[in-house]
């Protein structure tokens, strides 16, 4: 569901990433600012540590494996099976291979127009990752800017921005997305824009509350005493400590964005010339495939379900890795 990302994101609102942020903050306060190379190495070591902790959790392990499989399918799948996704394939006797059930030649079967569904599914994986990253990334950037500004400047700026966020949170996703697409034209580009425009709301809130606690730390005061300006403090001193939290929201957002895109495409506001999972299911639905071709419904639906689940499992594992307090439940 579209709400999945935002719904799940309500949970960690208090103190997520605190421990990591604290550790990093203490380290940053203790020694002079490291060079970019050293910073990069520290980050890499931290990422490895996070992965190790996540790997120790069985469900996260399953999620990581599934996600890697999806990445492989998206990356090299369309290069191996090079038929264009909307080309009708023909049988040996020259007839179009319509409505074929799964077989060795066509493991996911073919649809009513004789298009190879496996090819469409592989392209769909590519589009899912593309849409998810762009929408969640774009939304996280907007949310971070809003939350960082509100939390850092406080007072009137904070009040204004947070009221705006509250209003934005009351906007129902699907109806608004449909209005937007009806007005500005359906298609993948506009879907990504509207997803990013609706996704920034929860990251903005969480980033703000995190900034509120971070900005009182001694190392920020030290930076200010050292003559750092507001913008420098926000982006050089605060932002790096917010990154673990922001990554979590990007991760959650990818799952939300992919299922939201699928819903919108399913309702007929997608791009009929791009093979996304939602688009495949839209054509399956309009062709009445529930009656005639189960594979046309089940495979894209399963791909969606497993992708969203794997994203959820990975972000859950990541969340537990950066916030040890969650590990008890």
């Amino acid at each position: 569901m579209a709400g999945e990302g935002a719904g799940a994101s309500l949970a960690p609102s208090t103190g997520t990433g605190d421990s990591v942020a604290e550790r990093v903050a203490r380290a940053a306060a203790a020694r002079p600012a490291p060079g970019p190379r050293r910073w990069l190495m520290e980050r890499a070591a931290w990422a490895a540590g996070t992965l190790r902790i996540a790997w120790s959790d069985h469900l996260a392990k399953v999620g990581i494996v599934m996600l890697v499989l999806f990445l492989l399918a998206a990356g090299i799948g369309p290069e191996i099976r090079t038929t264009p996704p909307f080309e009708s394939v023909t049988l040996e006797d020259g007839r179009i291979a319509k409505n074929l059930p799964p077989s060795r030649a066509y493991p996911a079967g073919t649809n009513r127009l004789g298009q190879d569904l496996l090819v469409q599914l592989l392209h769909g994986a590519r589009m899912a990752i593309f849409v998810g990253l762009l929408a969640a990334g774009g939304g996280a950037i907007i949310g971070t800017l809003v939350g960082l500004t509100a939390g850092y400047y406080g007072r009137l700026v904070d009040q204004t921005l947070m009221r705006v966020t509250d209003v934005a949170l009351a906007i129902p996703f699907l109806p608004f997305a449909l209005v937007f697409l009806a007005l500005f034209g359906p298609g993948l580009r506009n879907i990504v824009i509207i997803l990013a425009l609706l996704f920034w709301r929860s990251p903005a809130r969480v980033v703000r509350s995190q900034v509120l606690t971070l900005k009182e730390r001694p190392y920020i005061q030290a930076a200010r005493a050292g003559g750092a300006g507001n913008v420098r403090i926000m982006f050089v001193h605060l932002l790096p400590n917010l990154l673990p939290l922001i990554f979590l929201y990007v991760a959650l957002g990818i799952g939300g964005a992919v299922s939201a895109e699928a819903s919108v495409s399913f309702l007929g506001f997608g791009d009929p010339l791009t093979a996304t999972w939602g688009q495949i299911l839209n054509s399956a639905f309009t062709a009445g495939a529930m009656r005639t071709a189960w594979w046309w419904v089940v495979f894209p639906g399963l791909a969606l379900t497993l992708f969203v689940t794997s994203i959820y499992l990975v972000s859950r594992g990541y969340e537990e890795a950066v916030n040890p307090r969650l590990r008890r439940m």
Partner: protein
Amino acid sequence: MRRYLVSRFAFMVVTVYAIATILFFLLRVAPGDPTSRFVNEALPREDILALRAAWGLEDALHVQYLRYLRNLTLLEFGTSFTLREPVAPVLFDRIFNSVLLLTPALVLMTVLGVILGAAAGWRRGSRYEQTIVFVSLLGRGMPTFFIGMLVLMLFAYQRQWLPAGGMTAPGELPGRVEMLMSLDFWKRMILPGVTIIATGIYGPMLLMRTSIIEVLGEDFLEVLKAKGLPGWRIAVHAARNAMLPVITSTAVTFAFIIDGQVIVEQIFSWPGAGRLIVQSMLDRDYPVLQAAFFLVAVSVVVANLIADLLYGYLDPRVRYD
């Protein structure tokens, strides 16, 4: 409490007003002329201008804006482009149909979710709890339309147990009372209802499970145990205290429930407001689109308010300030 209510209500009004304003300006900056659907392009230019003037589209922007706000407040939604009928009666009729489907489904979903989730929390570590958690994990990842298509495939086509869609048999137009009395109507409600439940039950279920686990450590349960109450009565006490977040979260997730409803109505051809929204967007029926979106925004804001108030009512420890 009164001060809280006043400020909460003021915020509600501001929110609805802001959303209506966003919609107004979206309609103005959108490419294309909204009247192009209604006016034949071949008409002479003067005639088109005269028509636009008659609709008030040639007035200054602020005049249009004020008129728009006035009409929304008075629920004067204008005439549908495609149906050529006033929007308000059609819309309210469709909303009624949606509520007819949604209410029993939501009640059943919450009750089932609470019971299954409570049992899972109560029997922590059992095979049953693991099954519940695993099913929820997968179910949460399933998009509504996939569940709906599976339900159709299994129960309407493969086993022809129940009708595939619509609220009444095709070609029949019974009156409202007659419809509610007929068995056919209730049969038609089962599949979409099952889809709504199968999409949304995981939230309440998982929440109830964690909530019970949290309550399990509390002192009052020890007291009940010491009093010698049977296990199931202790469970009821625990459940009552754990239910709070479930009920409020159902109200908070109302916006997502609407999303699901739009899709379910599309799949099962249920003539509700969600289907009307999708159709009006596909047809670019601006008056319907405006009105429907406005009402959805209002209902989401009201649901949030109800959630807040319920919270205070169910848990007297909550203070409003």
